[in-house]
């Protein structure tokens, strides 16, 4: 699986790693039961601290996207499959927003307001 980070972007690295995994999950590149690379391996390859990767994995676990088990690593849960359905809905929503001339920032604000903070 592909993980991309940009240390110059200002966003925390662990957030970027989690975003990368979420994106692959939503696109259907990742399926339930797939395993994330061992944290040590990913940290070594990205040249970041292993705790940064573990923090990203914990973030994904708190969202219910992965199961963290000793000895088995980070395994993607069934929640991954739900992401693909949402992706189709998001695509339709963005197309509607474009047609109506609603800019991305406004759409994001509307979505955020729908979630009870």
């Amino acid at each position, binding site marked *: *699986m*592909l*993980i*991309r*980070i*940009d*240390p*110059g972007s200002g966003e925390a690295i662990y957030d970027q790693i989690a975003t990368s995994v979420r994106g692959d999950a939503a696109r259907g*590149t990742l399926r339930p039961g797939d*395993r994330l*690379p061992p944290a040590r*391996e*990913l940290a070594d*390859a*990205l*040249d970041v601290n292993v705790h940064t990767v573990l923090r990203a994995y914990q973030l994904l676990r708190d969202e219910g996207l992965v199961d963290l088990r000793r000895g088995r690593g980070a395994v993607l849960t069934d929640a991954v499959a739900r992401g693909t359905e949402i992706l189709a809905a998001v695509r339709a929503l963005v197309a509607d927003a474009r047609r109506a001339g609603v800019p991305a920032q406004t759409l994001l604000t509307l979505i955020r307001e729908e979630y009870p903070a």
Partner: protein
Amino acid sequence: MSATPVSRPPRARLPLSMWVVAVALPLVVGAMAVALQLAWLPQLPDPIAMHWGSSGPDGYGPAWSTPVLTAGLSLGLTALFAAFLATARQPAPTASHKFLAVLSTVTAVFIGSVVTASIAVQRGLSDARDAPAIDAPMGIALGAALVIGVLAWFALPKTVPASAPVAAPAEALPLAPGERGVWIATTRVATRAVVAILTAIAVVSAATVFTITVTEGEAWPLAVAPLALVAAAGIAVSWRVRVGPDGLLVRSLPFGWPRVRVRTAEIASVHALHIEPLSEFGGWGWRWAPARGFGVVARSGPAIEVQRHDGRRFVVTVDDAETGAALLAAYAQVSR
């Protein structure tokens, strides 16, 4: 952003001459060897010498076991080579395809003539312990097999290059300046291939046990063969493939060894292509083939191929090879 998936090339129709060299010739040689051995059976001592040490024969077995072993090896090995070539895909015939066909004939001629010669020298003896040394016949058999192999190679049609024009160089994945990408995947040998490998180990073990039993334990050093196979299989079932800013790294699991590293600066070109293990590499695992170079071959399907500046190539079969190849191409481009 997703790279174009690697398509599976159509099956190759190999020329008839390939099948003659790979299947017909070895079967004819095997049949001739078995016929001669059966014809000489009444003139042989029982038991016969089956294994030679530095000071003459040191392993003995019943006379009937030799034609049985010859027939079994002839049929089994020929079927194996035929199966390899039956999976060939275009373009064909490559140097690997020709090599497999010629190897089938060379193996058949060598085994057939060595075993038959070991019987021939024992005709008319009353005690197998008087059997003469077979170094000379073995040398002649090896020489004859190699000559026939060279002749067969030149009798076969010209080879075609292995990859072109099927694969275009991988398109580099767009990376923003300062952005870092890492692609990590695990590749493991397909269950069907594991079954085939276990079967091969079982066949070798059975042949070894058979030989050790009929020689009443005197051929025990042969037991090294199946043990070596088990050890080799242990480091050739699963690998972790990693593409990052420093290049390509392939490590055997679970020990992380042996490993292959191709540094970004060494890379001349990157391809994503389809690999057919049997016809292109003659099997699975750590492989070398004349037309392809070195490879980590886990299964039939997409693979990343890198060519170094010195021309050496390395291939690893892995799911989603297109993405890995695109990222590797991006880093290879940056380093240029």
